[in-house]
């Protein structure tokens, strides 16, 4: 088991190297730093001096891979590739194109993101599984039918409308919570309540229906018939036998996103003005701050790889076949 995990870890590092090379190619081959400078400086008539100055300030003036002018290890380290890509592995994120310290920004902004995402994730999981179990319990009845109809209806509505509608109803019409904003400490609850609620509600359709499919798949298996043949009640069959087995496919989809909760939710944060990593990313995109986007891509991949390894670990908890092999 340990050997397997170590192998997965090494594989993860290789995946990150791949991501790194890919992003580097995307950011420095499709467009040269000169192009970026020109796009960033905006005006049609940009002087070469201004471009050079822009590149100097942000460290894009160095050669991409090999610095011919220097000798020794610096030939490799004093390059754009080393500065902007290799250093990411040491979590040295450098500064943004606007000159801000990205590492500092991330460390302060991830907590508000987590404050929205973690409760939304946990409450959501509970709600989706309960709803799906309810439908599976009453399968092939009117309740199940209308439950599925509701799910399909809910998953056909864009997330944007959940946010807009929620803000309108709870913020504007009923004045229950502030429409947007954020505050630390205990005060945060009144700002977080609506984003969390919307996060949960917007996911009901897709997730509950998906979990229902998984439950029904399990219910059709032979061991369920064996459990019924023992004379167990339908509720016990569902909770004792089906739920435990269904957790295996559910975990595959769920555990992998846990680390990504740090990254925040792009549109929710932006709509509600929560100073998290999601709105940070959106701002970077609208300001065309390539340095931040690059770092966020890398960070996202790191968290995803961690999620994959956590998924492997979680199997050992729920699946004895993995635990004992």
């Amino acid at each position, binding site marked *: 088991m340990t*050997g397997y995990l*170590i*192998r997965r870890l090494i594989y993860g590092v290789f995946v990150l190297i791949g991501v790194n090379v890919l992003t580097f190619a995307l950011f420095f081959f499709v467009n040269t730093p000169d192009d970026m400078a020109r796009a960033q400086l905006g005006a049609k008539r940009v002087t070469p001096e201004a471009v050079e100055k822009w590149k100097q300030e942000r460290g894009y003036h160095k050669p991409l891979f090999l610095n011919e002018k220097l000798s020794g290890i610096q030939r490799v380290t004093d390059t754009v590739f080393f500065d902007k890509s290799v250093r990411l592995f040491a979590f040295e994120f450098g500064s943004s194109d606007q000159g801000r310290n990205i590492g500092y920004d991330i460390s302060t902004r991830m907590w508000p993101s987590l404050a929205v995402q973690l409760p939304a994730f946990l409450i959501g999981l509970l709600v989706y599984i309960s709803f799906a179990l309810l439908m599976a319990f009453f*399968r*092939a009845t009117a309740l199940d039918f209308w439950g599925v109809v509701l799910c399909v209806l809910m998953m056909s509505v864009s997330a944007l409308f959940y946010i807009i509608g929620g803000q309108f109803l709870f913020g504007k019409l009923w004045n229950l919570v502030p429409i947007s904003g954020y505050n630390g400490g205990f005060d945060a609850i009144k700002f977080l309540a609506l984003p969390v609620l919307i996060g949960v509600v917007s996911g009901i359709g897709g997730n509950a229906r998906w979990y229902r499919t998984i439950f029904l798949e399990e219910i*059709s*298996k*032979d*061991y369920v*018939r*064996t*459990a*019924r*043949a*023992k*004379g*167990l*009640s339908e509720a016990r069959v569902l909770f*004792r*036998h089906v739920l*435990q*087995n269904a957790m*295996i496919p559910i975990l595959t989809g769920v555990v992998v996103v846990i680390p990504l909760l740090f990254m925040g939710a792009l549109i929710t944060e932006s709509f509600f003005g929560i100073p998290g990593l999601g709105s940070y990313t959106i701002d970077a995109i609208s300001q065309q701050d390539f340095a931040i986007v690059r770092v966020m891509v890398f960070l996202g991949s790191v968290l995803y790889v961690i999620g994959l390894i956590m998924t492997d670990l979680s199997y050992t908890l*729920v*699946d*004895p*076949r993995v635990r*004992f092999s």
Partner: protein
Amino acid sequence: MSKKILLSVRDLRTQIRGDGPPVRAVDGVSFDIAAGETFALVGESGCGKSMTALSIMRLLPDAAAISGGTVELDGENLMALPETQMRDVRGRRVAMIFQEPGLSLNPVMTIGAQIAESVRRHTALTGAAVDARVIELLEAVRMPDASRRVGEYPFQLSGGMKQRVMIAMALACDPALLIADEPTTALDVTVQAQVLELLRDLQRSRGMAMLLITHDLGVVAQMAQQVAVMYAGEIIETGPVQTFFDGPAHPYSRKLFDSLPERAGRNRLLAAIPGAVPPLSRRFEGCRFAERCDRVLPHCAGTVPAWHAVGEKHDARCHLYADADGTSVVKSATASGSGAQIAVRRAEDECSAALLQVKNLQVHFPIRKGLLQRVSGHVYAVDGVTLDIFPGRTLGLVGESGCGKTTVGKGLLRLVAPTGGQVLLGGGDFLALGRDALRRRRRDVQIIFQDPYASLNPRVRIGDALEEGLLALDVGSGAADRQQRIDALLTEVGLSPEVKGRYPHEFSGGQRQRIAIARALSVEPRLIVCDEPTSALDVSVQAQILNLLKRLQREKGLAYLFISHNMSVIDYMADEVAVMYLGRIVEQGSVDDVLRAPQHPYTRSLLAAVPVADPQAVRPVLRLAGDLPSPVNPPAGCHFHPRCGVAVAACATNYPVEQRFSATHLVCCHLCKKTD
């Protein structure tokens, strides 16, 4: 003596709803089971016997529903009980075990917990008393090392042990009736023998009634006191086992017996039933068997036959017994015996040179482990197999599942890559051929597979499927010639050339297997590897395919490597037999040598384990203990010694050398000495 009726089923009807018209899977079934008696329900697949059992338990799948009839247990109608009360019946008064022990247990729960659940549900036991009861139950089903096993998960157990767990679970509350739905079909023959013996002992010692559902007449003969034959959703014949086996009355039952290879004898054609079971979504006007019956009367197709007594407590639903004295018809029928004599093989065949020689064939699969995925061991699937196959003759390769017999077949065709040894074919080593040379030689050896549903691509027309080999191996000159060949092939296997343009889904299992045979024949091979070609088929269809294979062999001088786990099929088909155990041949010789005078203890116990379709058969008691060991770590010395009843000290240390027992008979055993 008339025993108390425990279960009384009257006019039970169950329908399955789907896309089309409802399928009447159970259509008016009635029978009684007396307390403490074993009642066998026999029939081929799709006749509704499992649905009958599930209907009694009211455990039908969501798409099926009981549409009529009563099921009375001790006079109480189970169909009228509310679901909550029915739950008290399930597991306590009526328990059930299923066909697939591998799928019937919850994979993420320990077996102890699963049995305990049953105990807790129906008894007042708590705490340590439950644990004690679980171990007691596991010991009752002869689970080795019961107290350690309670904490294990199903995947850690073999198939036989899983079925024991299922039985333990069913026994938890001493039910009055045990329903066993094909309890041993998924198991190997030696394990089947253990489980059947266990069931029989438990049933006798506990005075429990048993409803045994099976397709195997051999199992019926060994286990049951009463028998009922099911066909197309209804029971067509019922009676005490001895009377039934002495003189089956219904033409269908008689055909079932006649299609058994062990009944016919190797030089006779098997009696096959033409056609297939009619779809149960159809409405029937007369006898459901009429269109396949060789003794059909003019009114059979239009009038539903009534029950007629054909002997003491022995009834059949057939017009043949309407006015005549039933018993005489039975007698005359039995006398008619089975099919026509087949021309006996010419003697000069015996001395020709081998067509194909397999020398020390090895197929080892590496097992990779650890950080660097180093090869940490091997699965010794085939570990040094030597065989000779002669032109126009059949070599039967027999063994239990997991012994490596299928890998031998695939290895010599290079469908899996052998890791050692030689396959000499026409002078050269087939295993050493380069890509192009290999492609040309592929004409000589072809293969037919077990699963008729997987052996044809559902997206390719029959004609195109048959043409594939002709094109790939450049057989025939031009498109017209190829089409002619295809027509001839289809006619040869008993199908009309018109089926060329159709897709596989329109054909039954037996027809598909015929098409697969035609495909193998298309490139005019000299040897066909038949990998369990009939084990997915019903016995009457099996008879058709075996007859066809025999005829083709006679006409074309084909050689077969016939791989099977079924001793009676091997006995019927093979000229030479090789017995395989854990990747090696333990005994080989002519069919008379190996099956009539077996020398190796494994061959003997294998033969003893086969259920014979005769309730009075005198059976040697040679039960094999335990299961087949893993081919990853075969036991030291003789692979068989841990399960062998007669092992001596040398068996545990040295693998026995091959001994020539007679001119044609080779045995790998320390205890076999030449008798000359």
